[in-house]
């Protein structure tokens, strides 16, 4: 049986590993290599590495870093941040990323995603969506690490991505990110049920019982988290053991 995936996220900003709250108040956390080595120990299923400065600062993609992390990282590695062209993707896969994740560029040009899927295969092309809910509880999609509100209509956008056939969708609630108050159950469970692509939940992972509730009542394929692993004593292995005790298929 296919297992639910536990996926820590590492965010970096130029020189350092960071974590924020609702995409703000960025705090420098430990060293990247240290984090990767720890996650190796904890039998995580995959790792997501995001360069949050790339798009906004128009930086070159840091292939050296990807190479360094990939050489330390025994599990599948997804890289995101500043991907704009087919060449970017090719370079990243060569540097050691197993999957890449497109965010801002996809909001402007889904054809890139389509072309990438045709060339590289959909299995290594993820689309990441960052969103907030406005006061009418409508979902608004943001780009550029949460700085620019797009005019995209959420339901249309996810359907388009599904039709193109990307590998999976990473869905991040900006409101909940870094709060450790729980994933956005409503939105994430909804998307996981209406879309045929694997959906990874991101933003707000906190209490294990909450997480279990999301897993039990949705069809998500993976759980991404960062703050909970940086700032509390909960480790990915703890989460795995907890979910196994609740009969969720998890790899140990």
């Amino acid at each position, binding site marked *: 049986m296919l297992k639910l995936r536990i996926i820590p996220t590492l965010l970096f900003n130029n020189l350092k590993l960071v974590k924020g709250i609702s995409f703000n108040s960025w705090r420098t956390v430990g060293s990247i290599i240290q984090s990767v080595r720890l996650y190796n120990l904890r039998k995580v299923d995959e790792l997501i590495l995001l360069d949050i400065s790339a798009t906004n600062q128009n930086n070159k993609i840091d292939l050296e870093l990807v190479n360094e992390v990939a050489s330390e990282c025994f599990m599948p590695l997804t890289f995101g941040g500043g991907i704009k062209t087919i060449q970017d993707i090719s370079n990243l896969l060569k540097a050691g990323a*197993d999957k890449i994740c497109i965010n801002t560029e996809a909001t402007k040009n889904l054809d890139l995603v389509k072309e990438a899927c045709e060339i*590289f295969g959909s299995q290594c092309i993820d689309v990441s969506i960052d969103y907030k809910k406005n006061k009418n509880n409508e979902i608004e999609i943001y780009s550029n690490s949460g700085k620019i509100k797009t005019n995209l209509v959420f339901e249309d956008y996810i359907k388009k991505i599904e039709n193109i056939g990307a590998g999976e969708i990473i869905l991040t609630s900006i409101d909940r990110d870094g709060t450790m108050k729980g994933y956005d159950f409503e939105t994430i469970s909804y998307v996981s049920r209406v879309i045929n692509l694997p959906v990874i939940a991101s933003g707000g992972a906190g209490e294990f019982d909450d997480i279990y509730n999301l897993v039990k009542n949705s069809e998500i394929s993976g759980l991404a988290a960062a703050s909970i692993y940086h700032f509390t004593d909960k480790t990915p292995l703890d989460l795995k053991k907890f979910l196994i005790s609740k009969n969720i298929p998890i790899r140990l």
Partner: protein
Amino acid sequence: MTILNNKVAIIDLEIGNIGSIFRALKKIDCNPFLCENKNSFFTASHIILPGVGSFDYGMSKLIEKKLYEPLVESIEKNKIPFLGICLGMQLLATKGFENDNETNGLNLVPGNVDKIKIKNKLKLPHMGWNEVSQVKKSQLFENIENDKDFYFVHSYTFDPEDKSVVVSQTDYGDQFVSTIAKDNIYGVQFHPEKSLDNGISLLKNFLKC
């Protein structure tokens, strides 16, 4: 033959993550090298075709790089042990049906490659860790326990005509073939280079073939 003496040719179709397989092989102290042209096959003790990409694109790259014939010759005539990973296994087929195209494969193991049937709201691609159930003994799985999780990421599967080549199956909707072995030809649908300890063991076993 000790692993150290091996010279493993890795075919690069320029569309995948070559780095992972190189790193995994270096971890087990063998000598992987990039297979650039047909001459590379002369010195190879083993050949690996890793794969992330689409069937038609993969085949066209093999042809474009003039590797098609030398590869077939090395496998069929010279009997060099060959391991196809994911797309690399699928390219062994007679035909692949991807991107609405029907493309001819290497036809080294008769059978077709087709999309996984989505049943009961299953997601595609099949992505993540899943159990590999060994149905037949094979050197590839020596010392690897049955039903261990390996890492999969694909939307298509290979269905060989001759069922005696099937070494393992995996459950996703229906049962599909996750490992084949026919003489010196091996194919795995999962990614051993990303499957941690069990994947490394499998690669080691392949290098002993």
